């Protein structure tokens, strides 16, 4: 469980992203159509985009505050980020990708437990260009989790996976929550995914929060 404070104003070309949300969650879902600001919000949390105004706090740790003049670098935020296209390092194999975020104090059993939970052991020596969409996502998740982040941001993890295989991937996401106890911020435009995993949903459209609350309340309302 983490407590998240997102007070973000981020001016973009098409619209201004405005989010004010405080929640204690295990899985926060961000739901909305393409271009509604979901990815921009994730990037602001990860530190890859600087909001124009506001404050981002996780468990009372201030990551960004326009008033307080705080803007932690991405490497200081302890946030795992898995972008939609996974962005595995193309010059490294699967194991090297996963181990990229290892540090001196990384527990030695973390790597084997991640590769076991995400079923990556048979893939470790592969070049990343030979992986399927779902495999890439799992590798990217392991790579992010090896840093022991306080929260894992998943940007449409099932988008690059064909419908038939999606049911095979979702259990892995549930295992992150159940076995590794890592809180998630989960972006999707598929309501069914969020019903399965989120305990709170922010519904975004054109940069504004249309609704916030339990999946059953937020996902069923009309557009």
């Amino acid at each position: 469980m983490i407590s998240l404070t997102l007070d973000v104003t981020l001016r973009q070309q098409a619209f201004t992203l405005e989010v004010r949300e405080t929640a204690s969650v295990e899985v926060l879902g961000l739901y909305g159509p393409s271009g509604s600001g979901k990815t921009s919000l994730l990037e602001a949390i990860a530190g890859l985009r600087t909001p124009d105004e506001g404050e981002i706090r996780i468990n009372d740790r201030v990551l960004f505050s326009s008033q307080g003049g705080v803007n932690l670098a991405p490497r200081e935020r302890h946030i795992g980020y898995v972008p939609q296209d996974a962005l595995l390092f193309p010059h490294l194999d699967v194991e090297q990708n996963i181990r990229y975020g290892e540090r001196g104090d990384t527990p030695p059993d973390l790597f084997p437990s991640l590769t076991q939970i995400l079923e990556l052991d048979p893939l470790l020596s592969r070049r990343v260009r030979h992986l399927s969409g779902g495999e890439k996502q799992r590798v990217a998740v392991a790579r992010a989790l090896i840093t022991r982040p306080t929260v894992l941001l998943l940007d449409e993890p099932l988008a690059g996976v064909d419908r038939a295989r999606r049911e095979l991937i979702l259990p892995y996401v549930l295992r992150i929550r159940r076995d590794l106890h890592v809180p998630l911020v989960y972006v999707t435009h598929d309501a069914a995914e969020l019903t399965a995993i989120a305990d709170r949903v922010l519904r975004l459209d054109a940069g504004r929060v249309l609704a916030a609350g339990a999946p059953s309340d937020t996902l069923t309302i009309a557009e």
Partner: protein
Amino acid sequence: MNADTWAIARFTVLMAVVATALVLPPAVAAGWLLARRTFPGKTLVETLVSLPLVLPPVATGLLLLWLFGRRSPIGQALDAAGIEVVFTWKAVVIAMMVTSFPLVARSVRAGIEQVDRRFEDIASTLGAGPLRVFRTITLPLAARGIIAGAILGFSRALGEFGATIMVAGAIPGRTQTLAVGIYTFVETGREDAAWGLLAVSALLAFGAIYVSNRLVDQAGRA
């Protein structure tokens, strides 16, 4: 081909290798700066980086001659330290470096610009500082551009003439390179020797450009 031809060819290749090795670090730094950073005066820096490309090499050579001569502060400092540059092999290397720098820097810049910045972003979320991101992500992903740049710079160095003859002269056995040798052999009526150097030059240039093109083709397919 006689022993002279081979000695000149060996000397030129050696000087070009040293010049390329020395020009790479500053050229990579300049290429990275121009590809990844915006700062006041960037256009001015871009122009300065490209200047030796358009300035007549002889003019560049004249500038270097002044810079390392006894009338400039740098030349005086070197003189005081007992380091002689003008009309030595060091001048050959410097002339090669200055004239090949723009080619290397431009190629490095293009190589780095082709690297998706988001790979660097992801590396930073994984805890990597700027130096580690550069060393482990940017540099290997831009490797083809950097290698192509090095080969291009090496080829340019092999053929360097104008700046070299100004600042290093054409001292047989000391500063005579392939290009300078061809010129002096023709001037002194030794055309057969000039033709020998021409053949070696053509072979080296062909090899370097061929390897460079192969690399660019592979990068295009990757």
